[in-house]
């Protein structure tokens, strides 16, 4: 895991010959003309623009709609690798739900001393309003996006759990559609597991979580902050693909103890709300009073069983970066098994010994804000300037419990297609997991994010990362 080691390349491993899952693709690639591939890559970009798959970058005023660059070389996993991953993810997601139920009810894990009580009680992602609330079907995390990184042939780690409102699934779907259009022959030569049923599975999974108040076929709606949100395209895309309504806060209000949407014929109750707004903005009566994005009183309806909110309010506590470091304990506590997928070793800066170590080794480590996301507010030690390190040192000293630190992993690489042919770049992978009383459903594939800059380890789209299609081979 030291940064000096050559990173593991998923196409070539450590040798010259392609690894097994890439053999067929590589053979095809060798037979292609670079000029044709360049033309195809350009066509793909045009297609994305026309479809309007853009995202907005926060903090840029003009021309703030950007495309996430798409790379035409797929990230390929063998079926065996996928089985291993999906078993680990399933175990972890099961534990996450059990953990959430526990800390909002009996708090056994705190009583057993496996997690310090103050980690929960002092955590702003913990919602006291949810204590004692039983969500429909006892499901808290209906949709999870587990970030996986790899460092070797058999070395996979969970980097983040993304259990509140994971985004990116529209790219998983659109990237595959684009590949179908550009290179149909690849899907005839290779048996690739389908991802395109995801919206139907999402709909089924959400419908299975309908609240007690629902009678008949559940009415599902997607709640978006609106067209200026960075993930708006995805909200509209999912609503469209599921055949659900796309609503904003001002379309909803509490009517007769139900949350109802304003239609051309008056107010109609919503049974399941797939919300893509954060907890704090969900209910101005119960949380942030200035929120224009939420629905006043929705939490009261929720507590009375009048609506299902997916994911449940208060799930953020489970993907909090400080709680992350306890995940191996959490998995063991609730499943009775060792975690199948390891965590990345993590130093909690709130602990004096760890803080001292982290301060001594800043130039080697990745430091993250406990509540940060999207690659903002993060220090990648080996890539940082002296000034940046000094700034982070001051931040850490001022508020140590706001940070965690991890070793700089030698993330695996997958080649991207450049003007000069294939060139290795670091990747991570976010498979999407659906949870309902009927079980845990993981779509074989996911969103592969790739750092397009040579040597860069930051794959976030807001920081210049790109995406790839992700293949899980059928056999």
């Amino acid at each position, binding site marked *: 895991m030291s940064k000096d080691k050559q990173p593991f390349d998923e196409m070539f491993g450590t040798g010259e010959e392609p690894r097994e899952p890439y053999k067929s693709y590589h053979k095809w690639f060798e037979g292609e003309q670079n000029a044709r591939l360049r033309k195809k890559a350009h066509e793909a970009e045009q297609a994305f623009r026309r*479809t309007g798959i853009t995202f907005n970058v926060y903090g840029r005023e003009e021309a703030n709609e950007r495309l996430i660059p798409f790379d035409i070389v797929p990230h390929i996993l063998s079926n065996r690798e996928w089985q291993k991953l999906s078993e680990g993810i399933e175990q972890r997601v099961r534990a996450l739900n059990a953990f959430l139920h526990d800390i909002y009810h009996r708090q056994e894990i705190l009583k057993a001393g496996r997690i310090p009580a103050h980690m929960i009680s002092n955590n702003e992602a913990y919602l006291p309003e949810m204590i004692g609330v039983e969500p429909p079907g006892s499901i808290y995390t209906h949709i999870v996006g587990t970030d996986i990184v790899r460092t070797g042939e058999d070395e996979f780690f969970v980097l983040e759990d993304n259990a509140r409102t994971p985004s990116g699934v529209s790219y998983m779907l659109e990237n595959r559609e684009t590949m179908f259009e550009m290179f149909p022959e690849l899907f005839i030569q290779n048996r690739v597991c389908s991802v395109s049923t995801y919206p139907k599975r999402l709909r089924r999974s959400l419908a299975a979580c309908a609240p007690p108040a629902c009678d008949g076929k559940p009415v599902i709606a997607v709640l978006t902050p609106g067209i200026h949100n960075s993930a708006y395209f995805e909200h*509209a*895309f999912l*609503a469209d693909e599921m055949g659900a309504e*796309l*609503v904003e806060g001002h*379309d909803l209000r509490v009517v007769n103890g139900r949350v109802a949407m304003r239609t*051309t*014929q008056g107010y109609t109750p919503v049974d399941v709300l797939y919300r893509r707004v954060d907890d704090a903005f969900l209910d101005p009566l119960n949380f942030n009073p200035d929120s224009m994005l939420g629905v006043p009183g929705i939490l009261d309806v929720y507590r009375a069983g009048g609506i299902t909110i997916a994911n449940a309010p208060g799930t953020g506590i489970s993907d909090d970066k400080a709680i992350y470091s306890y995940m191996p304990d959490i998995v063991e506590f609730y499943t009775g098994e060792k975690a199948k997928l390891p965590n990345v070793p993590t130093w909690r800066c709130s602990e004096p010994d760890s803080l001292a170590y982290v301060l001594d080794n800043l130039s080697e480590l990745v430091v993250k804000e406990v509540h940060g996301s999207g690659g903002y507010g993060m220090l990648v030690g080996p890539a940082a300037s002296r000034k940046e390190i000094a700034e982070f040192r001051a931040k850490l000293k001022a508020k140590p419990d706001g940070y965690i630190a991890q070793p700089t992993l030698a993330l695996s690489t997958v080649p991207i297609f450049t003007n000069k042919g294939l060139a290795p770049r670091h990747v991570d992978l976010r498979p999407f997991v659906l949870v309902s009383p009927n079980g845990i459903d993981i779509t074989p594939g996911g969103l592969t994010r790739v750092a397009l800059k040579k040597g860069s380890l930051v794959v976030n789209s807001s920081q210049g990362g790109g995406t790839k299609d992700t293949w899980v081979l059928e056999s």
Partner: protein
Amino acid sequence: MMLGKTAGGLFWMCRYLERSANNARLIEAGSRMTMTRSMADDAEWESVLSTANVKELFLQKHDHVKRADVIDYILRDRFNPSSVMSVVESARNNARMVRVALTREVWEAVNDTWMRLKEALARPVADADLPKVLELIRQQSAQVRGALQGTMLRNDIFNFCGIGTFAERADNVARILDVKYFVLLPSVSMVGSTIDNFQWEAILRSAAAERSFAWLNKESGPRAIAEFLILDRRLPRSIAFCYTNLARNLAYLEEEYGETLPSREMCEATLGRLTSTDVETIFDGGLHEFIQSILRSNNALGQQIEKDYRFYA
């Protein structure tokens, strides 16, 4: 049934798209006047501003009405909420908002329109390029219309699109007549004089009706032109055509939703006035008054539709 917000978004998307093509047509008619007449005529460009309903806003920015300024203002100015660039952007924002109600083809046509016009209107349009740019605006509008016609289900979504289109078009045609009514008045028009022929042609051109008018072998003259633009239901831009369609759209919604709403009655009342009158009666009662009252009731109809179908909370 659909979200009230979605109904409103569809209505406005189509209003704005209709407005972009209408603006292009106004500029086209104005330019033709400038080219075909020996003397440059700022009054002509002033009436273009009035027809586009932006004269006052324009004069807040410019002291004088100059051709190049008017063209730039109506095509590109970001501070003019009705400029082609502004309305295309608003149309696209509405389309994004109602994305779920649109087919992929319609959304891509709107998005494509926005991308192309943003490029074409990135800089002031040189005189030499003006015809090409105006043609592009018209073509893009046809592309969206084609996608709507060819791919959308004929349900309430489609009917709200129609309502937006025809409410905007009726307003546009009425405004053309409102600004130019004096040209059509018998008291000032000298039949056969060159000036009036130019003016009449400009009116027909603004409504994209000059060819059909000629094709029908109508005898040119103020009454025939007024009759054609107000009452002829064969002309897809006449006020009567717009109201026939508005009435049809609203009747569909009434049947679909099973309730009679005030907007339907208002629309039928206006349609009744258009079908039970003739051009003589209109001129006898005063063309200007007639047009003004059409503009007023069209405006009131839009507001009633907004209420009846709960566009806003």
